[in-house]
């Protein structure tokens, strides 16, 4: 069960602004989904190794050789605020 404070905490972690209506709806919907998911915690998984990846590949390495890459101009072409050869952003902590 997720309450309003937990929803707001998770939304802050996810950098997601939610409206009041979304907070209410999210608490109900996520609680319902989590209630269903909870069942897996009843399984006996003692000693089972977790799987993070299904392919048996360990450390795919390659020679560290320079290759052509995107130019700064091309990389910045889709940016909302290209600035002096970089990505412009608002000042952290600036009051609105």
């Amino acid at each position, binding site marked *: 069960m997720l309450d309003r404070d*937990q929803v707001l905490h998770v939304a802050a972690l996810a950098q997601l602004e939610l409206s009041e209506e979304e907070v209410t709806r999210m608490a109900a919907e996520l609680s319902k989904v989590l209630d269903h998911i909870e069942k897996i915690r009843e399984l006996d998984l003692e000693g089972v190794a977790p799987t993070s990846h299904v392919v048996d590949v360990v450390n*795919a390495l390659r020679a560290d050789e320079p290759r052509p890459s995107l130019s700064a101009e091309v990389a910045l072409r889709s940016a909302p605020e290209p600035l002096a050869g970089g990505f412009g952003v608002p000042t*952290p902590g600036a009051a609105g």
Partner: protein
Amino acid sequence: MSGLIDLGGAGAAALVRAGDLDPRELFDAYRARAASNELNAFTWVAADTPADGVYGQAPLGGVPVAVKDLFCTEGVPSQSGSRILEGYRPPYTATVVSKLTAAGAPLLGKTNQDEFAMGSSNENSGFGPVLNPWDRNRVPGGSSGGSAAAVAAGLAPWAIGTDTGGSIRQPAALCGIVGLKPTYGACSRYGMIAFASSLDQAGPLTRDVTDAALLFSEMVGRDPCDSTSVAFPGPIDLPSAEHLRGIRLGVPEELTGADGGIEPGVRASFEAVLALAEGLGALVEPCRLPHAPHALSAYYLIAPAEASANLARFDGVRYGLRVAGTGDLDSMYSATRAAGFGAEVKRRIMLGTYALSSGYYDAYYGTAQKVRTKIAEDFRTAFDRFDFVVTPTSPWSAFELGAKTEDPLTMYLNDFCTVPMSLAGIPAVSIPSGFSDGLPVGFQLAGPAFSENRLLDAAHALERAIGFEGSGARG
């Protein structure tokens, strides 16, 4: 023109290679149909016909391919169905798309999809839902619904999509076409806008199994740009089997019993195909996948967890939408994401962030990863006795627009039969098995990792015996 459209991908490619068909004529015919786009299947259609002469002897013969929106294509809108990427034109092209172009399949257009591939009905697209060509009041499935509808309706000869928990197989089933989710790692993920990196896999959506094999044969391969990709052991062959003698098919009770909510028409079609399989010489027996009923729960922790990390990149800095907020950096991030993401994407980001958050990580994410281990073990055990595991692809046929949008959990049940294979990383193919109340139904076969050649051969034999008639959707 209808004659051209009735050619499958492989059939058209063969005619081009024989010098009996001008690939420009074929491209123009499909471009006109794609541009008419009454199903909202395309988000972009190519304006120019490719130059003459380059495709004559290429393996794919100049037969154009429709590509799911989330594959980055240089200079062409690639929005992953999201308003947060509206108008985004990437500076590079996904490996799979480059390979297909090089093999003689030029880009016909980009297909609509659920936002960031999160959905089973295409109703989560930021650009409006795709309509099912068999009944325009119904969904095409998702998330590769645009690709599936385009192929079924003959707006494209063939298409590619991606499958994370069923996003190729389920829309293929609901639209009456073939969809292959390959072994994880068989196709490069480079240039695919990521949803859940340990599950995402590209694959073909086609009118028949032969087309799927041909398209897939040009998609596979290790890519230095995707370190999780692996070299496929040997070439992909075109399927030729006409019988199933000696093939053992396992029917998992856990996925085909009463718990899956399989609708009667889907069950009847499934059982009819099992009878056909026996007629072709297959041995059909029950098998066990004891942890499969928990696959959906594990999936809806693992996939959102990975998504919450992958979607952190959409922050209004490097590409896509930016909303100023109240003027500082954090406010810009959260206001941009609030405005750009749709409801389902927000839900999954929240679920994934929660599952990874301090104090809950072991209980949720860690537990789900252990369940994933057990599910993969279940399949390995089943494949000791059986060549393939078979299930209905989706518990139900295409449902009406809006029928399942109110309850996320009901929508998630679409993936009941497809998610276990995704978690195990094994290949699975959906083929049309017949109709339920006039709507197509899919039959799923799954095999061990890298068994695609055998899997497509068996699917080919069944496809011949079933004799599904898909021309009804091409109008």
